[in-house]
């Protein structure tokens, strides 16, 4: 049990009362004068080529301030991978570009295609529905094994394969590992599948941004 006093004691947190009474001040609780909202058009196919994107009708809808598409971010760079992995053979991982809005292709269901900024969230959502997206669905792979097969559709055309990296600590201890398995009384072989791992907080759907001379989003 925790001690009652001194170092290591469990002490009541001062912030708990406001969190327990609904008086916390989270990102989506903030409202400022002139605040605008953003809603995203996202891909409903796992893999597709964007043949056309018509935002004219959406842009003319009530309250719409600006619509962004991948074309607005050409040459801007994308989202870098925060953790570069070296594979078990000492080679760097393959890192494709991750544009903030899809450019040319969509690569997963939910891939953001366009962002609509409007005076209210409802207006932004309505305008998203008015964007005409001509997306040609392409073959997709939805499991790891198939993704690694020869000739599997590639998520990123400019990479050599769908393998980002093959990671492990086997090579640096290969002899000992081989010996242990060879001399083991019993060896079990099994296929392990992991779910997608995403480290997100509960408060994940909201961002608040302010830029000079522009409304807060």
């Amino acid at each position, binding site marked *: 049990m925790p001690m009652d006093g001194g170092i290591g004691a469990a002490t009541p947190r001062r912030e708990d009362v406001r969190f327990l009474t*609904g008086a916390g001040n989270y990102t989506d609780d903030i409202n400022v004068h002139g605040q605008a909202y953003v809603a995203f058009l996202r891909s409903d196919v796992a893999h597709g080529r964007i043949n056309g994107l018509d935002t004219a009708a959406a842009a003319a809808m009530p309250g719409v301030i600006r619509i962004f598409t991948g074309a607005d971010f050409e040459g801007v760079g994308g989202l870098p991978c925060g953790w570069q992995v070296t594979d078990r053979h000492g080679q760097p991982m393959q890192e494709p570009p991750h544009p903030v809005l899809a450019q040319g292709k969509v690569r997963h269901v939910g891939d953001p295609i366009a962002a609509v900024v409007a005076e209210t969230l409802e207006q932004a959502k309505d305008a998203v529905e008015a964007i005409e997206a001509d997306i040609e669905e392409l073959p997709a792979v939805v499991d790891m094994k198939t993704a690694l097969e020869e000739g599997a559709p590639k998520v990123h055309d400019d990479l050599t394969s769908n393998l980002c990296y093959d990671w492990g600590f086997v090579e640096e201890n290969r002899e000992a590992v081989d010996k242990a398995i060879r001399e083991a009384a019993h060896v079990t072989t099994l296929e392990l599948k992991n779910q997608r791992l995403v480290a997100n907080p509960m408060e994940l759907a909201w961002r608040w941004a302010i830029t000079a001379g522009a409304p807060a989003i």
Partner: protein
Amino acid sequence: MTKITMTVNGRQMSGEAEGRTLLVDFLRGTLGLTGTHVGCDTGQCGACVVHVNGDAVKSCNMLAMEAEGAEVSTIEGQAAADGSLNAIQAAFQQYHGLQCGFCTPGMVMSAAALLKENPKPSEAEVRKYLSGNLCRCTGYHNIVRAIMAASGQDVSAIAAE
């Protein structure tokens, strides 16, 4: 836009809503009760749990108009008028059943609904009842302890995390 009226935490409140307005958006946006949270918008996380006519509901899965004339209770109505925490809230603090606090309103409202229908739940019953409430900070353990302690049960046998 249609005017709708409901009793929220014992007070009659009215506001304008569209047909598509969700109860959670009406509570947060129109009535300004931002204690109820939206974590997923898809009925999975439970941060938006409130009580409607005594039943725990995910308010992101209910239209505001469906609550016309209903008795709604939210996290803002759980503490006493003098601000003192109720037994569940106090136990959450005592047993460290929260960290960032985002899921907490939904957890407290679900716990209140559980203890109303099952005043002395077992650990397994608490865990099962909370399956619709997600938390990313605590690992649930201290939430379960808090709820069992709030129900007046000895939690010393449930190991501290």
